[in-house]
């Protein structure tokens, strides 16, 4: 083989273009946000992005967060893929202007990413990851403003046992950290109350046909089907269960609490589906009215985690203000300081694991094609 001048010039061109693409410096401070902004869970992921965006925009309008600095939001998509989440985390920590991150959405992403944030000394507030193990790792950079599954699961079990008088339950999960986590908690609590768990099966995310599984479930005649997972698969399960003439309602966690669920499974089939959700109904909170108006005028309907992301971003902003200098360690110590941060969800105080002391869980039900708040448990 001879020396190929074309090859040389290709390499040369690539080299030059690459080096030329280096970034520039500006006097900004940044907050990162990450979640599934594209892909099949984009509906939910975008609620996180928009909540954070609104918070940052409002903060900039209200004056400088830190004198001399402009605040920017850096979104990075993780497509609910843990490897991408790790990659996003590494990008965040390698940008010194980023002082905190709102993320991620899925527990399976937040967990590995939390190690990266810990190593990189960057504060992380998750608006929606409910798996309890994440805060038990001892990372002082991890914070969470939503309740955890070891709260949601048992409360769902209580509701099912007491209000729905369910005694026999079939459990399905989607094998993710979140799905398995919440169903395990539900199972423990339900059995402890004397209920009977008829079976516990896993399904694969992205799958479409659950009729074989549901046919088996039907022969067991459960009072309730509890599903741990997200709305794409949940909507198919609900629809196919109705088609197979299964009378038992489906109940799930916050992962299925999304308007799209009703659309995808058809309102008739979704009628009578229950879901738990962390926190209370946003619309009923007086202090949230302004937020609701501002969000809806800019982005349209409020989504499942819009308010959480909004509060998380605002807490970061408050922490940065209180730190007074663009320093990550200071932001972390402010958050750990045990202070209370006001927000539209109420007052948020982080305990020594980074969990919020706000432990409200609500139950919602689908009625007439809409989610309706049943009560807080």
């Amino acid at each position, binding site marked *: 083989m001879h020396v190929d001048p074309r090859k040389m010039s290709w390499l040369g061109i690539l080299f030059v273009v690459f080096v030329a693409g280096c970034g520039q410096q500006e006097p900004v401070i940044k907050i990162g946000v990450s979640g599934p902004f594209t892909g099949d869970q984009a509906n939910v992921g975008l609620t996180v992005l928009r909540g954070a965006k609104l918070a940052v925009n409002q903060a900039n309008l209200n004056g400088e967060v830190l004198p001399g600095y402009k605040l920017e939001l850096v979104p990075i998509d993780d497509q609910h893929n843990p490897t991408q989440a790790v990659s996003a985390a590494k990008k965040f920590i390698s940008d010194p202007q980023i002082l905190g991150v709102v993320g991620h959405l899925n527990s399976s992403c937040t967990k590995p990413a939390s190690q990266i944030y810990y190593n990189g000394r960057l504060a992380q507030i998750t608006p929606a990851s409910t798996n309890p193990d994440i805060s038990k790792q001892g990372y002082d950079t991890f914070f969470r403003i939503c309740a955890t599954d070891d709260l949601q699961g048992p409360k769902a079990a209580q509701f099912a046992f007491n209000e729905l008088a369910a005694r026999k339950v079939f459990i399905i999960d989607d094998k993710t950290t979140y799905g398995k986590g919440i169903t395990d908690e539900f199972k423990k609590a339900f059995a402890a109350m004397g209920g009977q768990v008829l079976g516990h*099966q*896993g399904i*694969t995310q992205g799958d479409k046909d*659950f009729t074989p599984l549901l*046919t088996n479930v039907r022969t067991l005649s459960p009072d309730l089907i509890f599903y741990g997972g997200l709305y794409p698969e949940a909507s198919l399960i609900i629809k196919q269960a109705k088609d197979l003439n299964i009378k038992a309602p489906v109940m799930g966690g916050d992962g299925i609490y999304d308007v799209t669920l009703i659309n995808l499974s058809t309102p008739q089939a979704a009628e009578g589906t229950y879901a738990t959700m962390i926190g209370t109904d946003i619309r009923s909170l007086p202090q949230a009215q302004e937020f609701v108006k501002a969000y809806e005028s800019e982005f349209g309907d409020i989504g499942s985690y819009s308010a959480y992301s909004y509060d998380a971003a605002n807490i970061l902003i408050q922490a940065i203000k209180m730190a007074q200098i663009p320093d990550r360690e200071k932001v972390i110590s402010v958050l750990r300081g045990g202070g209370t941060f006001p927000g539209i969800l109420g007052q948020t105080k982080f305990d020594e694991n980074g969990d919020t002391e706000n432990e409200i869980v609500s139950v919602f039900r689908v009625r007439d094609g809409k989610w309706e708040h049943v009560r807080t448990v």
Partner: protein
Amino acid sequence: MELFFQQLINGLTIGTIYALIALGYTMVYGIIQLINFAHGEVFMVGAYIGLTVIMFLGFTAAANLPLALLYLALILLISMIVCGLLGILIDQIAYRPIRNSPRLVALISAIGVSFVLQNVVMLIYGPQDKGLPQIFPDIKFIFGEVTITLMQILIFAVSLVLMVLLHFLVQNTQIGRAMRATAQDHKMARLVGINVNGIISLTFFIGSSMAAVGGVLFGLYYHTINFHDGYLAGLKAFTAAVLGGIGNIPGAMVGGILIGLAEGFGAGYISSEWKNVFAFVILVVILLLKPTGLFGERISDRA
């Protein structure tokens, strides 16, 4: 026992859809020895065309059965024509120029087409699952523990009719004879005056329109479609085509049903999460042990 029948019905339903797609694979392979990797995407496009037609014409839940059937016929017709033309287009652009190249080249081109189709659909319609409005009344037939929905019956009926028609076309008409001749030997077919390129295009048209029907029925049955549905369904349908004997049309139909049943029973009796593995294992085993398939033919050993 009733559990068995219910699983049987579940399996048959999806199997019929696989059979429709498998027809396209088997016909194209029979005629130009190409695994049309993009065929699964044509199926997916068919489903999306169905969705578009429904949205465009504003169909909603029809309480009225005859009206809904009319809607269905219209949707199927439009989808079949569009996808049939799409199939011809794909052949012209991506396969014809490399008709004489080795299989690796054509296969990669086919994969490229598959990506293009998937992503065009994704860019137009978005990456989330799309819901299809319900156009049929929610009629169910209940026999004890076994339930059959109207949709399932429709799927069987439509597919059966189409497959019978296709079989008739291929076996008993002049055009069918031309197709069979071309599949046997291009050069000789040309010598006896058959327009080989035209027949090839026709084959793509028919195969793609079958897949389109499968797509529309799939969309109406599951009520949600996603741009990624074509890949998996395509592979399973290909397995079905090989199972039945690639190049063999009745074989593809039988193969599809068998794969659907295997999946349904496998998921029901063994495990739901390993469902896709069954199809892949069957694929691998068949290709290793008996590549000529059940009704084996047409692998004129060019290897």
